[in-house]
């Protein structure tokens, strides 16, 4: 049996090697503790979030934490059993058309997954048509749009416009990234904008 508190602390302290060792031990022992281990990782990510908000951790640490979380999921995936009700909610995330940056998107994705969301990731440079098509096909109600370049704001607006033209008025759209602010939110017609991953999670939790 592994010490789950130790696992939680290892993720929170960004002790990648220790976290990996504990997770592998879970699997070597047959994976019976996989679900509890995943919860411990999620609590570890909460510690990361708290430290980010207090200023102790910054963006580089969030990138690192996101990668630890992705690896944790990878190690545990064969033993994780979906419980009743499954994920807290499903969201679509992508970097918008003509923008190739994915670090911010990946951080948000990892933290959303750590918070129990099922995330459909369309990657980078995503055309609005593909987003609308996926929303319709997967019956998603939350769309998260990321971008770093100033041109991303125009691409975000195109997504909102096409979603509304397709009659998907009940789909909530949140935008985030370097060029995004209150003004960009108003111009694009998005429902909200977020300065950091924690705010994104809070909006998603409120919307599901």
């Amino acid at each position: 049996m592994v010490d789950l508190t130790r696992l939680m602390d290892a993720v929170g302290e960004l002790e990648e090697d220790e976290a990996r060792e504990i997770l592998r031990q879970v699997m070597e022992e047959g994976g019976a503790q996989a679900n509890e281990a995943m919860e411990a990782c999620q609590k570890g990510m909460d510690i990361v979030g708290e430290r980010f908000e207090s200023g102790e951790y910054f963006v580089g640490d969030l990138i690192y934490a996101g990668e630890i979380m992705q690896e944790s999921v990878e190690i545990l995936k064969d033993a994780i059993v979906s419980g009743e009700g499954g994920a807290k909610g499903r969201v679509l995330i992508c970097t918008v058309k003509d923008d190739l940056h994915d670090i911010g998107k990946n951080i948000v994705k990892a933290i959303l997954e750590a918070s129990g969301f099922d995330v459909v990731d369309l990657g980078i440079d995503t055309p609005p048509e593909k987003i609308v098509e996926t929303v319709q096909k997967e019956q998603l109600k939350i769309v998260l749009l990321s971008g770093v370049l100033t041109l991303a704001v125009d691409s975000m607006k195109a997504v909102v416009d096409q979603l509304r033209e397709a009659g998907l008025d009940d789909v909530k759209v949140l935008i985030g990234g370097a060029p995004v602010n209150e003004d960009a939110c108003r111009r694009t017609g998005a429902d909200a904008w977020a300065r950091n991953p924690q705010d994104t999670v809070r909006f998603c939790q409120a919307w599901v």
Partner: protein
Amino acid sequence: MGKLYNEKLQLFRDNVSMKHTDRIPYLSNAFTWKVFDSEFSLPEAVRDSAKMEKAVCGFHERYHFDAYMDIGARNPVRVLDALGSSYYEITDAGLNVVDHVLMEPEEYTEYAKNPDLFGWTKLMKRKFPDVKGKHIEAALMEFLGHANFTGQIGKKFVEEYECPSVYGGANVVIPPYEYFFQTTRGIRNMGRDARKYKEQLIEAINAQLEKNVLPGLKYALSQDSSMYVCDTYMAIIGYGILSEKQFGEIYWPTVKTVLDLLDKADKTMYVFCEGEMLRYADYFQDIPKGRVVLHVENDDIFEVRKRLPGLCLAGGMKVELLGNGTPQECVDYAKKLIDELGDGYIFSENKMLSFKNDCKRENLLAVREFVRDYRR
């Protein structure tokens, strides 16, 4: 250098020294937007120096800025094409730089022992894996062509347009952390390295400082740079992922060494602070007046002025306003910038004008006219 050139140079230098001037100089921070404002597409202009020259000169003849951050020479695309590099991704929408990972964190110590040897024997091979002699020959020819273009257009801006450059191409300082952040480890790895491989990273950073940065800086400081607005230039970008504590431990010591050397040599530096620098403003408080220009990008420039009243600031004109506002809204904001920032200010766009919708021609013309005539 003609009379107008010297007048412009003095106008900039007086602002660097925080003196009152009868007008505020306008430094254009337009990069690839100059092409979007021309008859050419970006992919064709970056690979055709005649078209680039036409776009850049047409841009100057339209707006007549006092100086430029770029005159079309920044991206030697054809040189990298010849080497088979995928460093740039160029489309009709804009130019992106692709993040590359060329070394592992376990190699920091080896790098520190001999940066040049590591660079030539390992990094070059990894960056250009398929390069043969014929590629190097072709790249050299392209490099000569690019150097020729740079020299020609530079001469035209000095002699015909009487426009000073902000800095000389050989006087660029790349902080050691930026070297690893931008060229060898990739952005996403640097967060992990700052935690997990901190000692090795600092060892490599110190080696890069001693063996490459300081010798280059000392050479630059020994040269005549009297024709430029500032003697040296430095862009800081990678600090944006570090916590304040990490910045103090990993990044700032090398920058402080550079700034101390600059101060000792009585020279100036233009520092482009990409992203947000306000978190680190305290570190800049001890820089002597007149030594540095800080170009701030995403920060509230009025707040930066409050925190750093003794430093010349540049930037401030919001690209989102130039791209989405009306001429009057842009002029009103330009007036606010000049009125509230006072002496020691170089008017410029906060971000590089890079993409098509970053700016509207009528807005830029209105702002240019206003800045030229205001205070007179």
